[in-house]
């Protein structure tokens, strides 16, 4: 485990998280959530939690994003915050 | 056979839920009997467990996958969990039996899914009660919560929004609990409750353990709707369909209180909770605030189902306050109230379901004339109301008896006053309903000027609910009396052993 890499990804994760809840477009929020999950998946792979990383990649970055997009597709992209 | 009972109690409903889920798409008619059958088996199993535990006096341990305690997951059935198991299965069964018609009417095409979620919810609660593993509890909590969200979500028009709020707060609660388990794990390396209980006394001064305690309890408080975090409950419960409300309202908060009791008593010892942290005092005050707030808010409602939900909040305050009094009387009262309040709430919500079925609304004013047209239902409703008020010999009186005694013994007169205050408010609440259904529409039958020839009622035609709803309802309302009379015995034979010997 390389702590520098760890740190960079952590920072990126936090940035993604903040972006996901602050972006003014729900579709972007969904995609940013996907990116967030994917970065976490990387983080876990680095930390040696391969099974968790695999699951997060399939579930968090994959299916969850699709669900979010599907829901946004059926509701609205518009948001005020 | 007996050795596998702890597994059967939960496995049978689980398998049945799966079969029902599939049967919902194949043969809808098979769903209901399977669900009822599974819950009956579960109920009988739970009753057998209770009898066995009471007779032998030893807790039963069941090892899943054959692994011993700290490695694998075990179920521990002791006096406390056996008692709560019986309550859960009985309430779920009775409510299911009585709501056949409601389910048919409200969820025509989705009967299978509803019943499957119903049974899953029950299974989740059973598991939460029986499990001896802190993480397993989280998983089962989520099962119960998720199926609960679904059951509540399909109700009246505002139900989805209310349920979404419930889901957010419920998730916060569950996640806090999970975080607490994580903190315990980081401090001890174990997940098994008995194992944790053995390790924790050695690290009472650890900050991690302290935080685990705080965050776990906060999570549970959110789940049980204690005062500052109660916001989700009234909306969610009052908007749900009556079949779902009859299951969820009596059980969710009570099982969460049970888990709080279990965690405080069996995970962090009594010594840690009450002597080391001295958590009792402040939490009793929170409970007092809950009781006062719940009662006053109930007073402000015109929708009787919403009123009932605020009463539930006040009752949560009873149990939490009683438990954190920290003496035997108070704890007995709290645990007894888990049982009694489950039955009382069930009775009230079944009554609300029957009223909704007959009148179609949940406004207070629409209860008028029901004493004439539905005398048996009203009799049961009066009994339930009296029980909530705390009139002997209904069961509500006796748990209140223990709670008040505990308050006096602990010198917490504010808690006693809050209990009495809430009883009086409850009296106002229920007699207001009784008045409406008894007096209105105002009659002018002095001197027999109208059709009242002296026979039965003010010439009212009796239009009772269907027998399938009425009979279980009356059964439950009679149980209120039976439980009341057996209260003392439940306490001396069961609850007494559930409280650690150190508590006086």
């Amino acid at each position, binding site marked *: 485990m390389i702590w520098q890499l760890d740190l960079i990804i*952590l920072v990126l994760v936090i940035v993604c998280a903040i972006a996901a*809840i602050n972006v003014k477009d729900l579709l972007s929020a969904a995609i940013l959530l996907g990116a967030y999950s994917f970065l976490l998946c990387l*983080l876990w792979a680095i930390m040696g939690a*391969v099974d968790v990383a695999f699951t997060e990649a399939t579930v968090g970055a994959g299916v969850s994003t699709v669900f979010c997009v*599907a*829901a946004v597709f059926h509701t609205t992209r518009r948001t005020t915050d | 056979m007996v050795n596998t009972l702890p597994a059967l109690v939960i496995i049978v409903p689980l398998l049945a839920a799966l079969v029902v889920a599939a049967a919902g798409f194949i043969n809808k008619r098979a769903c209901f009997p399977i669900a009822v059958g599974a819950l009956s088996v579960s109920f009988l199993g739970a009753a057998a467990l209770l009898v066995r535990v009471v007779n032998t006096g030893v807790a039963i341990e069941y090892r899943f996958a054959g692994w011993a305690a700290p490695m694998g997951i075990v179920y521990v059935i002791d006096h406390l969990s056996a008692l709560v198991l019986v309550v859960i299965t009985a309430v779920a069964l009775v409510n299911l039996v009585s709501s056949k018609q409601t389910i048919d009417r409200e969820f025509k095409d989705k009967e299978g899914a509803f019943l499957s979620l119903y049974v899953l919810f029950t299974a989740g609660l059973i598991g939460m009660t029986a499990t001896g593993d802190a993480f397993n509890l989280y998983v089962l909590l989520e099962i119960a919560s998720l199926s609960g969200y679904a059951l509540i979500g399909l109700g009246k028009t505002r139900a*989805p929004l209310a349920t979404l709020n419930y889901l*957010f707060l419920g998730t916060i609660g569950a996640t806090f609990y999970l975080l607490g388990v994580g903190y315990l794990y980081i401090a001890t390396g174990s997940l098994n409750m008995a194992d944790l209980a053995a390790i924790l006394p050695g690290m009472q001064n650890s900050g991690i353990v302290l935080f685990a305690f705080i965050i776990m309890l906060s999570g549970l408080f959110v789940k049980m709707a204690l005062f500052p975090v109660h916001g989700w409950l009234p909306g969610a419960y009052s908007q749900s369909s009556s079949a779902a409300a009859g299951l969820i309202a009596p059980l969710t908060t009570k099982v969460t209180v049970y888990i709080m009791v279990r965690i405080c008593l069996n995970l962090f010892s009594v010594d840690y909770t009450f002597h080391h942290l001295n958590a009792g005092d402040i939490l009793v005050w929170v409970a007092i605030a809950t009781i006062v707030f719940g009662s006053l808010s109930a007073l402000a409602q015109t929708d009787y189902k919403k009123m009932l939900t605020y009463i539930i909040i006040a009752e949560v305050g009873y149990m939490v306050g009683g438990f954190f009094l920290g003496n035997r009387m108070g704890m007995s009262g709290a645990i007894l109230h888990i049982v009694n309040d489950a039955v009382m709430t069930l009775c009230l919500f079944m009554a609300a379901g029957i009223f909704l079925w007959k009148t179609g609304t949940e406004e207070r004013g629409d209860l008028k004339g029901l004493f004439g047209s539905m005398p048996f239902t009203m009799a049961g409703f009066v009994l339930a109301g009296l029980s909530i008020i705390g009139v002997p010999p209904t069961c509500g009186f006796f748990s209140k008896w223990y709670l008040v005694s505990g308050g006096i013994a602990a010198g917490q007169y504010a808690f006693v006053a809050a209990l009495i205050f809430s009883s009086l408010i409850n009296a106002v609440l229920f007699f207001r309903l009784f008045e409406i259904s008894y007096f209105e529409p105002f009659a002018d039958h002095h001197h027999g000027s109208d059709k009242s020839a002296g026979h039965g009622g003010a010439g009212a035609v009796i239009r009772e609910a269907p027998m399938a709803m009425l009979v279980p309802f009356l059964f439950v309302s009679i149980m209120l009396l039976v439980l009341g009379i057996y209260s003392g015995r439940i306490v001396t034979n069961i609850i007494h052993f559930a409280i650690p010997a150190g508590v006086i």
Partner: protein
Amino acid sequence: MDFLTVLISRANYWAYIILMMIGLYAMIAKNNLVKKIVGMSIFQTAVILFYVSIGAKQGATIPILLHGHAPETGGNLAHAATGHGTAAVQAVNYINPLPHVLMLTAIVVGVATLGVALALAIKVYKEYGTLEENEINQRLRRG
């Protein structure tokens, strides 16, 4: 230990706290329901990060034993007897697998909750035509 060391050596713990607070803030303070759901997702994954960090172990590898990884040493009789021919496996060499197992479950719970929450959000949108809470409340107040 100076400040920077503490900051870096426990970066994961700080990150989990920050993420958790971001999620919590979104759940409480955001106005849009889908935003709240996104916040909930972040909130839940923060705990997963926490658990996985518990499991981390310096100088250890992923928790999968390799076949024939080390030749039989026979040094430890007890292990040789139970070890099915494989060498004595040393716990310090492998990352703690238990938190991983727990987190698999938590991820699944997370996606399940997400699904149900989105379903509810769709229903809310159908009912009110908006996902903004203040607009919904206005609508409710108007009748």
